[in-house]
């Protein structure tokens, strides 16, 4: 199945939590050099950014962020600075990875072209209403199996593509601390649609999405008090992803998970992270019943409307148990305001 989209329909967005991205971009050169890249510097980064030549790149710094969003209360620090990149992008598709992810190799030893795979995922239908036991039926060499209802075979548009990670998998701090030596070496050659109504932890480390459809539904809102600069010191992407999933379910859009893989490099010490107060675990427990019960008005047919509805329910149902939820709800509303003000205008802010 051909997915002929033009290169200028894609933006690569990378949040720079490290100043020296030379080896990162050089490693990705064969895959990324065709595309426009948006690099957003973590406002907390003191050093200057170092990037190699030969890329079509726009860099956004703290001062750019301040200039564009003005007096918005949205916090774009740490991993959340990537959302600024989503905000200012004008492309239909965004592929975003953490700055500690390198290209992976597949089982045949070939470099994984994550952009090609993510775009393939986003431009072929998703099948959330019935599980296909041969996984993505639109992949070459696969199809719908016997018993798959014919009326469900057209599928729905895939709005979000969640990739995976070899080497350092996206574990939380307790798991990584307990299994210090565990590395993910299993390359699972599959993409599958995560069924409607199933909840999932969407990791921000390696994702791609259709900005036009779900841009507003990926946002910086859920900030832990001691959120840090290592992924296992955050749950902001998990929160945003769970919201995005229920919104996709409501809007009849699909979410795929699986390929492509990135190679996630070693960083940090999980045990050190455990020493920090780790509220993320506790808070995740509270949210499961909430997400099971979220409901949207039929009239909410766009992602931004759904986000506002969700924010209201978050405040009402979760606000009591912890102020982080109230802040998240407010941040979600503010994000939609920002998106409408900045995210949809035709002029591209200068980087």
């Amino acid at each position, binding site marked *: 199945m051909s997915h002929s989209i033009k290169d200028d329909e894609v933006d690569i967005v990378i949040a720079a939590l490290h100043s020296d991205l030379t080896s990162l971009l050089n490693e990705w050169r064969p895959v990324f050099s065709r595309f426009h890249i948006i690099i957003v510097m973590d406002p907390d980064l003191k050093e200057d950014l170092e990037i190699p030549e030969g890329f079509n790149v726009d860099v956004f710094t703290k001062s750019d962020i301040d200039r564009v969003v003005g007096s918005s209360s949205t916090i774009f620090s740490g991993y959340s600075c990537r959302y600024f990149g989503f905000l200012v992008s004008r492309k239909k598709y965004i592929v975003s990875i953490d700055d500690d992810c390198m290209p992976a190799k597949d089982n045949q030893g070939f470099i994984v072209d994550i952009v090609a795979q993510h775009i393939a995922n986003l431009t072929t239908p998703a099948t959330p209403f019935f*599980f296909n036991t041969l996984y993505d039926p639109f992949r070459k060499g696969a199809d719908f199996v016997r018993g798959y209802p014919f009326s469900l075979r057209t599928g729905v548009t895939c709005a979000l593509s969640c990739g995976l990670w070899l080497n350092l998998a996206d574990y939380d701090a307790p798991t990584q601390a307990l299994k210090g030596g565990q590395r993910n070496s299993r390359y699972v050659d599959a993409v599958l649609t*995560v069924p409607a109504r199933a909840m999932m932890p969407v990791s921000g480390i390696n994702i791609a999405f259709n900005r036009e459809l779900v841009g507003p539904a990926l946002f910086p809102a859920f900030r832990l008090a001691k959120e840090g600069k290592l992924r296992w010191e955050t749950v902001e992407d998990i929160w945003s992803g769970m919201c995005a999933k229920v919104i996709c379910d409501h809007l009849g859009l699909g979410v795929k998970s699986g390929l492509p893989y990135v190679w996630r490099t070693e960083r940090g010490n999980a045990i050190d992270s455990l020493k920090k107060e780790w509220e993320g675990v506790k808070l995740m427990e509270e949210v499961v019943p909430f997400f099971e019960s979220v409901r949207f008005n039929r009239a909410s047919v766009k992602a931004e409307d759904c986000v506002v509805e969700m924010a209201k329910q978050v405040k009402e149902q979760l606000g009591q148990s912890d102020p982080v939820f109230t802040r998240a709800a407010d941040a979600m509303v503010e994000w939609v305001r920002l998106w409408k003000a900045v995210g949809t205008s035709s002029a591209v802010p200068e980087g």
Partner: protein
Amino acid sequence: MAGTTTAATPLLKDELDIVIPTIRNLDFLEMWRPFFEPYHLIIVQDGDPSKVIKVPDGFDYELYNRNDINRIMGPRSSCISFKDSACRCFGYMVSKKKYIFTIDDDCFVAKDPSGKQINALEQHIKNLLCPSTPFFFNTLYDPFREGADFVRGYPFSLREGVPTAVSHGLWLNIPDYDAPTQLVKPLERNQRYVDMVLTIPKGTLFPMCGMNLAFDRELIGPAMYFGLMGDGQPIGRYDDMWAGWCVKVICDHLGLGVKTGLPYIWHSKASNPFVNLRKEYKGIFWQEEIIPFFQAAVLPKDCTTVQKCYIELSKQVKDKLGKVDPYFDKLADAMVTWIEAWDELNPAGASDQLPNGKA
């Protein structure tokens, strides 16, 4: 992958029966001998009962032909299909073991990407012995596999998982396509070895294939009725799928898990697509009613055993699908007959009781 120090998978040779429906011969067992020989086989011989099916030497087995089925079940044998591999469910009923593995007689040992022969039975046992996770999707798939775990964001309260009732395996080479797909893609072969097992989320249905299937008979056995197919029936090739939809609805209700993925077997024989089309034809239309039926099916809280769930489902089948075709009336009756026969051959014990299911 580096070697691990996990304990070897138990053989379970006294707790597992292998059920094989056949109408031809059992030559395929020779290839499986290294893996199957320790186990007791239940052969269900379909078709002409006067034909003698030779079982290769060295296997411990019991064999039932149509005469045996009629004798053992009496008038209730009407619920067991004739001239269709759906008859295999008779084997589930007469087994006295905790686990069942069923396989078709045109399925052989497959090889993994390293060239090693796959012990399908061992993988099924692994799948059944470790929990399922239907309430929250783990992006690294089965977290209980060596080298995997729950990912960041996975709620800790859900990490214990629930008991696994079904392990649904896959097939390399001839894929399990329906007739229209077979006609359009006669040469397509499944060559992709996907190294994963995953739990099918609660609330999601799937098309279950009986070619390479294992289940916990004590947890879900009575729901594994493969319906009315074959001779005298208007439909075929929907037996395993029908069982799968009933099983999934009941598992979701009772808080049990269904896994799919590994192990692979090698499916060698492509059935005739024109024959298949004739069998499936009505099913293709009926399915458009059947699927919404199962998707909307709700079982009352007081259905706390598999049998109660199944009887309730049969009532709903009669009520809601009866108007689609009189076949569903007959099927609903057969579902009840099946449970009656099951309970008679398997007198109820404490093991049939399960805690209150989640509606």
